[in-house]
């Protein structure tokens, strides 16, 4: 689905990313982890074509990213941002309908009736009771669900998540990630997620890319990547890694040194 080759980016002479190479397979849940300032958000912004790389190439669905128009890209790729949606006066249903923009002609019309699609997604996300509410009346968790709904309405082949659980408490975090995984199972969508919670990354990602100061440390399964030495080298703290009793995936526990 995505091929990234020799990617580089620098801001005013300071290198942010160097020599990034990886592939993401169709239908995969791919995680990007790394400490603050490691360049993971920059990498995601390059995949969504908001910023251009200085060198290297990204190929998306067998076509170089630079050759897509914004509208073509929006039919393949949807992004769920960290910040969520601003408190504007649009209703939840109106915001979801905006997800159809890349498919509409200049009159705002589309060939097929999209109401069933929007209803289905509102059901999936539990947004039906909120449909007529405006964004400024919603909580952070609710707004993030609306933002996800808008991204799903785009019917993307690739869904990019930029630290989507940052401002959510644990109940909403699991809920959001479960919805994404459920949707992935029915639509075979590829998911690339920047995550800062390593335990969440382990639970949901098939493979994980670890970044440190703009350099790619490695790509591998959660078992490969979430090892005590690697985490200590990158994050500067030595955690205890244990196996999750139910999911049998690595989970980390922090240790205080004081």
């Amino acid at each position, binding site marked *: 689905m995505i091929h990234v080759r020799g990617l580089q980016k620098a801001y005013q002479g300071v290198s942010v990313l160097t020599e990034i190479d990886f592939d993401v397979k169709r239908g995969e849940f791919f995680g990007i982890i790394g400490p603050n300032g490691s360049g993971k958000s920059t990498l995601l912004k390059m995949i969504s074509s908001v910023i251009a790389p200085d060198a290297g190439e990204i190929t998306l669905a067998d076509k170089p990213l630079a050759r897509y128009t914004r*509208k073509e890209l*929006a039919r393949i790729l949807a*992004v769920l*941002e960290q910040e969520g949606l601003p408190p*504007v*006066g*649009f209703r939840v249903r109106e915001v979801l309908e905006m997800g159809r*923009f*890349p498919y509409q002609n200049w009159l*705002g019309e589309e060939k097929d009736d999209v109401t069933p699609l929007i209803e289905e997604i509102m059901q999936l996300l539990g947004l039906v009771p909120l449909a007529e509410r405006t964004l400024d009346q919603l909580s952070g968790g609710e707004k993030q669900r609306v933002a996800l709904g808008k991204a799903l309405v785009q019917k993307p082949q690739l869904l990019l998540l930029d630290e989507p659980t940052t401002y959510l408490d644990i109940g909403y975090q699991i809920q959001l990630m479960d919805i994404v995984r459920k949707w992935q199972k029915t639509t075979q969508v590829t998911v690339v997620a920047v995550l800062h919670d390593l335990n969440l990354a382990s639970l949901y990602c098939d493979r994980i890319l670890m970044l440190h100061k703009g350099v790619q440390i490695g790509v591998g399964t959660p078992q490969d990547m979430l090892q005590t030495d690697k985490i200590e080298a990158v994050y500067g703290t030595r955690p205890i890694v244990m196996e999750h009793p139910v999911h049998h995936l690595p989970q980390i526990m922090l240790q205080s040194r004081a």
Partner: protein
Amino acid sequence: MKKQLLLWGGASSLILLASAVVSISMGAASLPLSQVWLILLHQLPGMSDLVAVTWPDSSEQIVMKVRFPRVILAILVGACLSLAGAGFQGVLRNPLADPFTMGVASGAAVGAAFLILFGLQFAFLGEWSTPVVAFLTGLCSLWIVLSLAKTQGKLQTETLILSGVVIQAFLGSLVSFMVSLSNQTVNEIVFWLMGSLSFRGWAFTYVLIPYVLIGVIVLVGYARSLNLFALGERQAAHLGVNVDKTKLIILLVSTLLTAAAVSISGIIGFVGLVVPHLVRMLVGPDHRILLPMSAIGGGIYVLWADTLARMLLVPTEIPLGVVTAFLGAPFFAYLLKQNKRTGRR
């Protein structure tokens, strides 16, 4: 959505029509409302035979030569300013953006004042020359404001408004300088600058009509993109909007509308700020309804402001800009207070 647009559009058009007729009947010589209706109906193609002439010729002269063109001009100027305000606010996602805070109106005013100072209002292009020159100088000031505000290739909304204010102050002093330069024409520039719609005749109306049409068509065509802008520029980009191109087109068209209005009636403040706000409170944030309703609402607003301007101190006229600022500023303060919490209603 379409039903809502028809409903609001129909209702506001009726209010606009009624306002126009009432305004025409008012003046130094007061005319009966029914007479105004009949005179206007008489002018419609195919109606002249059906409506018998029951009014004195002087009434028809007053209506058709003096008041009707002025009313139409007021409506068009209001529509221009209000659309421009809605465009600037939408694309910059800033409720304080309007033709004036952006420095565009002052830029246009510099060009127009220059022409008046040297008596060139009708040189080169006839009645088109002032709007064209005002558009060019308005565009220049917009360009300066934008390049001042641009940091690392990005436009920050706050810096943009700030540079708009700076440029506006500078250009305002330029206009004042031109006022002090001219001896005989002082009153003309000053009165034009404060905003007036008197003695403009039909020629100016014909000049404004294409501007309003272009403005409405282009801006409404971009209404859905503007809705996406409301969620943030990056959100809009992710949904397939070509952000830079859309921004440029909307800024250009809004400048064009501002220049057209300013060159004909001087600086009429607060229309582009107050009307879109008021309309937003009534119909919500959807630009597909907001933009056409702002055009009609701006027409109604300036029509009544102008009626007040010519009626309040009869036979003296108050500058229209004074009236709109007098009505607009306190009203805007009230809106600000009321609207702080609620986004939609």
